[in-house]
């Protein structure tokens, strides 16, 4: 990197906010040179512009909890961190909205919102460290998506910094708004390949008055699918419904209800009726973090975690395929699937076997209109594409990328189809 550029960056953001990258800053095995933590959104945009002008590759980073997701970058020069952009700009509690900078952690945001009995109705991974910008860029939603929608339904405004230095806002501060293109949705799940999200506006939900959760055991995956579809087809107003599968254990579903005590009692009675002979027990709050447990396999060198998407009535079939693939390739496995059809599979075994199993599963899911995105995988199997097939929309995606990031400055090669 040219030293004059480095001086320009230091002059802009201050010496204390620029440091040489260490091995800990590596991105999926690729070593960047500098880590920069701008103090304001405009500084961030300006650093990005300078880097783009100089032809450097930029890796945006929030809390760094999901930095390994996606394909390894083809180049990595600067890590552009939002660590200093942590301000909660406005919690308009009476309007049920919040404007927040991208580097604020989810946990800190939730703590502030809870002072007025509200929440961002989202349960992402590792909220203590995960930031607003990182969660948005990876589109990381959990079980609450069933009732409250995903990030695409919660985000109502965004400000992004583009590689040419443009700071562009879209959406707004009100929940209902159809003025202009919905670019907040475009950057949600874009893995930082179009622009760096510096600020977001969300719609909020009230914290529930009371809640009750239950676990329901089923004999096998088919029985679990019958139960899940029956709940979905019922009048129950559950907040989430997720099913766990894995190894020898029988499948278990967790269901959460929120509301008034009177409402909850009625819901419980209906649930028990629907569950019929299946065992129903009160559940604690531990099922909230069920997804994080998929990462608890012992060795990162032999673990892969994939996000899967399927039609709800393909649940049993999919689990059967996971089980068979695991058997053939001698893998340990577990899976967590939400009633929305989104789910997560954790596999542990030799990298070559993991790769074969994931390829098999991806083919199976894609045949039925679903998808498999391998988010975490051992460094030794990086030749396996993380994303899979984006179909005939890929040409438009590439055109959008070219319009906003002409030189391929942001996260080069990390996204779908080589974007």
């Amino acid at each position, binding site marked *: 990197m040219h030293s004059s550029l480095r001086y320009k960056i230091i002059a802009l953001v201050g010496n204390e906010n620029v440091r040489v990258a260490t091995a800990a800053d590596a991105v999926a095995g690729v070593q960047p040179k500098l880590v920069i933590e701008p103090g304001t959104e405009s500084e961030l945009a300006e650093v990005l512009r300078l880097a783009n002008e100089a032809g450097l590759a930029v890796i945006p980073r929030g809390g760094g909890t999901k930095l390994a997701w996606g394909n390894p970058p083809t180049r990595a020069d600067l890590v552009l961190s939002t660590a200093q952009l942590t301000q909660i700009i406005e919690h308009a509690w009476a309007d049920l909205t919040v404007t927040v900078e991208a580097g604020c952690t989810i946990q800190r945001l939730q703590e502030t919102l809870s002072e007025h009995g509200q929440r961002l109705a989202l349960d992402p991974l590792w909220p203590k460290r995960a930031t607003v910008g990182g969660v948005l860029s990876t589109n990381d939603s959990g079980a609450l998506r069933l009732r409250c929608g995903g990030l695409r339904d919660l985000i109502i405004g965004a400000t992004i910094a583009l590689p040419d230095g443009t700071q562009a806002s879209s959406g707004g501060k009100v929940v209902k708004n159809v003025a202009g293109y919905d670019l907040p949705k475009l950057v949600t799940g874009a893995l930082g390949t179009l622009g760096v999200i510096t600020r977001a506006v969300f719609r909020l939900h009230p914290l529930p008055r009371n809640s009750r959760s239950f676990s329901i055991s089923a004999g096998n995956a088919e029985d679990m699918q019958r139960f899940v579809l029956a709940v979905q087809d019922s009048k129950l*107003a559950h907040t989430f419904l997720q099913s766990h599968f894995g190894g020898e254990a029988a499948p278990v579903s967790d269901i959460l209800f929120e509301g008034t005590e009177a409402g909850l009692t009625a819901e419980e009675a209906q649930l028990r009726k629907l569950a019929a002979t299946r065992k129903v027990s009160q559940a604690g709050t531990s099922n909230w973090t069920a997804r994080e447990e998929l990462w608890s396999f012992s060795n990162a060198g032999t673990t892969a975690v994939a996000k899967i998407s399927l039609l*709800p009535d393909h649940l049993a079939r999919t689990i059967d395929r996971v089980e068979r693939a695991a058997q053939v390739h001698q893998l340990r496995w577990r899976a967590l699937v939400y009633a929305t059809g989104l789910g997560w599979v954790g596999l542990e075994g030799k990298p070559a076997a993991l790769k074969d199993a994931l390829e098999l599963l991806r083919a199976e899911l894609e045949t039925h209109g679903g998808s498999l995105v391998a988010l975490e995988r051992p460094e030794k199997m990086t030749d396996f594409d993380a994303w899979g097939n984006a179909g005939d929309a890929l040409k438009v995606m590439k055109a959008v990328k070219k319009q906003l990031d002409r030189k391929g400055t942001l996260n080069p090669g990390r996204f779908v189809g080589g974007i």
Partner: protein
Amino acid sequence: MEARILDEFLAIVGERGLISSLEELHTYECDGLTNFRVMPRAVVLPNSTEQVQAIIRICHRERMPFVARGSGTGLSGGALPVTNGIVIGLARMNRILEVDFSNARVVAEPGVINLDVTGRVSPQDYFYAPDPSSQSICSIGGNVAENSGGAHCLKYGFTTTHVLGLEVVLADGSLVHFGGKTLDAPGYDLAGVFVGSEGTLGVATKIILRIVKRPECVRTLLAAFPSTNEAGAAVSDIIAAGMLPAAIEMMDNLAIQAAEAAVHANYPNCGGLLLVELDGPVAEVEALMTDVNEICRANGASEIRLAQSDAERALVWKGRKAAFAAMGRISPNYIVQDGVIPRTALPRVMSEIERLSQEAGVRVANVFHAGDGNLHPLVLYDRRIAGQEEAAEVLSSKILELCIEAGGSITGEHGVGEDKKKAMSKMFAEPDLETMQRVRCAFDPLQLSNPTKVFPTPRLCGEQPGEYLAHPAESAGIAERY
């Protein structure tokens, strides 16, 4: 239009699918916003995706702009034809292709009427949630273009929440698929960008919708307040109490009078009427309805009624949904405005509208989706009285400015279209709009799909496939290439 092109269209859609005589074209010269009129060169009515592709390939070859049109009920001129362009009417593509109850999905063509989706799935106790007031005539394709809302989007979300996937014909005639039946397809959320893009990114030819199970019960309460201020305070308290009603609607006295005259909804005569609808499990709804009742009383409601039957509930909604059309009963002409404010700004904005209305000597009736701050001020005037129309237009734009100043939006559900292009520069800065236009260039580099809408200043895209051809706007000197 040149006969050779007409012949080509004819070969694609047949005689019943082509309109080119002047008298028949009049039907298509405007949409629900009737003060803008442009005569299209022709109207083509395809009945399949392949026909849409064939038509658009011709447009692309001829560099001829096109505008897609559903039922033509839009209120911002989104389906207004563009000069020298054709209209692609999608009314004949009105088949529901697939209903999948286990996965709660419906695949529909763009010409399917919104309410017909619900009609098709209601025997199994499902419904399609977005419910614009025009739902009995507006089309799903139009809803996709405008990201239509409706009274129940407070709880259920907008069209974009319920569109999972799209088959789209791009402006070069190629076919692409965004999203799908499953969630989170790999790649950018182009379905999310397409919904609400007002026909400027291409033409949707198939739409994958999510349907919703009907709640166990629905309860609708009417509360009469001395003015919209007290009604507004009650709304704030309901939200602060942690409730998320299915709908909260408000009408002022003038709007009540009009609705009464039109459909005899039996509304109490008062200064501010609140309609609160809760749905869900019976026990939950009844517990919360008690709270809503108390909140209304505490805020000075003089009369509170709970609709006692489905018929009564339907009548209550009929009054609300007919409110725009009902203005004809109390005023010869009116402008339907659509703006959004943060809900807390309601009392301030309302008194300012009142002041502006008195100053201008023009009456304003107010109907809002109060839960989400979406205002529909109806500016009433009489075209026959000299100066009234202009005064009404000025007042209507001032109301939009109030919305922007309050931190809101120039449109909550009707769209920008032709009508509010200029206001876009008041709500967004130049870099914001340029970024949106760059996205447009990725979809439609020649700007053939509903050009001249949404953006205040036409901008042409830098890189173009194929040979260079000057855009009409460029030749005319009203746009520059960048």
